[in-house]
């Protein structure tokens, strides 16, 4: 087994490390890049805690080898907001009690942000489908759904809100 030096762009910054092929992307993010916002729960694809975005689409970082992501662009929860302010979705999670222990939260945020970006219309059904692959043991999901609806109102373009 050979080590390879790979570079992965995470939150617009290049991270370079020498890794075994079996290095999971989740471990690359947490241990090689030191970005511990991404959480690891089950490590076999069922809980969604490790969700990040790969070229904009939500993916499970525990089900991808770091080497598969070589040369591609990853976004983690640390990259959600580029200012000290929270992203509107994070703020709404805070306001609507969309989290308790917070273990699942980075995964939910990284699944929901692309849903909100791509959906023609934000609906409760759509939100629930977007997070069907994320498990939360604390909130019972309702407050997460509420948070997304609050954020969606917040983020709606101004002209739309005035109509």
């Amino acid at each position, binding site marked *: 087994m050979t080590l*390879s030096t790979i570079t992965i762009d995470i939150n617009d910054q290049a991270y370079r490390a020498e890794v075994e*092929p079996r290095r*999971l992307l989740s471990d690359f993010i947490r241990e090689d890049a030191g970005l511990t916002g991404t959480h690891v729960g089950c490590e076999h694809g069922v809980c*969604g805690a490790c*969700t990040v975005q790969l070229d904009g689409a939500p993916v499970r970082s525990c*089900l991808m*080898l770091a080497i*598969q992501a070589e040369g591609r662009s990853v976004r983690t929860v640390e990259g959600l907001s580029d200012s000290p302010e929270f992203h509107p979705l994070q703020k709404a999670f805070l306001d609507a009690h969309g989290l308790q222990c917070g273990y699942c939260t980075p995964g939910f945020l990284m699944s929901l942000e692309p849903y909100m970006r791509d959906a023609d219309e934000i609906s409760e059904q759509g939100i*629930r489908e977007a997070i069907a692959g994320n498990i939360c043991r604390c909130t019972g999901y309702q407050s997460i759904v509420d948070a997304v609806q609050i954020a969606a109102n917040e983020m709606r373009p101004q002209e739309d809100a005035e109509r």
Partner: protein
Amino acid sequence: MKPAPFDYVRATHPDQALELLATAGDESKLLAGGQSLIPMLNFRLARPAVLIDIGRLGELSYINRQDGTLRIGATTRQAQLERSKLASAGWPLLARAIGWLAHPQIRSVGTVGGSVAHADPAAELPVACSVLEARMTVASRSGKREISADDFFVTHLTSAIEADEMLLEIAIPAAPDGAGQSFVEYSRRHGDFALGGAAVVIPLDAQGRCAGVRITLMTAAPVPWRARTAEKLLEGELPGAQQLAAAAKAAASEISPTSDIHGGSSYRKALAQTLCFQALTEAAAMATPPDVTRVGK
């Protein structure tokens, strides 16, 4: 857990992947989206010596329609098929099936070919391939061959693809004119593997009688199960509630699903009958005799 060590090669061309398969043989495994394989590596249920990554083979990522046949390249992402207007227009059953397949985070990476090659009888795409009578093109260094869906699915997690072969394309023939199509399934939570499901195509003749109905049951047997007895029962019949109920009953009596912690065999049989009836009813409601559709257009 973490995977056991392996070597990794990223194929840059389909021919190179075939060359690597031919030389590495049984010790190697193709890696497409990894959404089935990586969990198995993490659990150490699989310990290949070499992984051949075909995930970036753009040559095998396409959806097109030629002479009515839908052609899907093996490395096409499931999410691409989900969004394909070409696919949903002619094969609404496919769009329905994909909606049940796992979660957005899996479909963005998982490939159509990987799901078909994985040959899980609880998976949506193999069932869709069976009922839509898809043909799979596989290749090795020594050439290509085409396999019908019936011959392709051999048993639980086993397809007719040989160790030195790779799946290149799934070809789905046009559904008969005016045929009704349906796909229904039941799982405890959306995106979980199904406890049961049924996919149905109902073509009608000019008199509005069933002509060549196809029924495939999901999670009913080690392979997607074509319920042939039930299909024959409907031949030449009007698709009324009574006929459809009799067919659903016949379909369920053909199978003996295995019990597990998620559901016993008799429960699964009853579920298969209910879902089969639902799918038949839905497809029958959509079906129109061939000439009527043409007038409608």
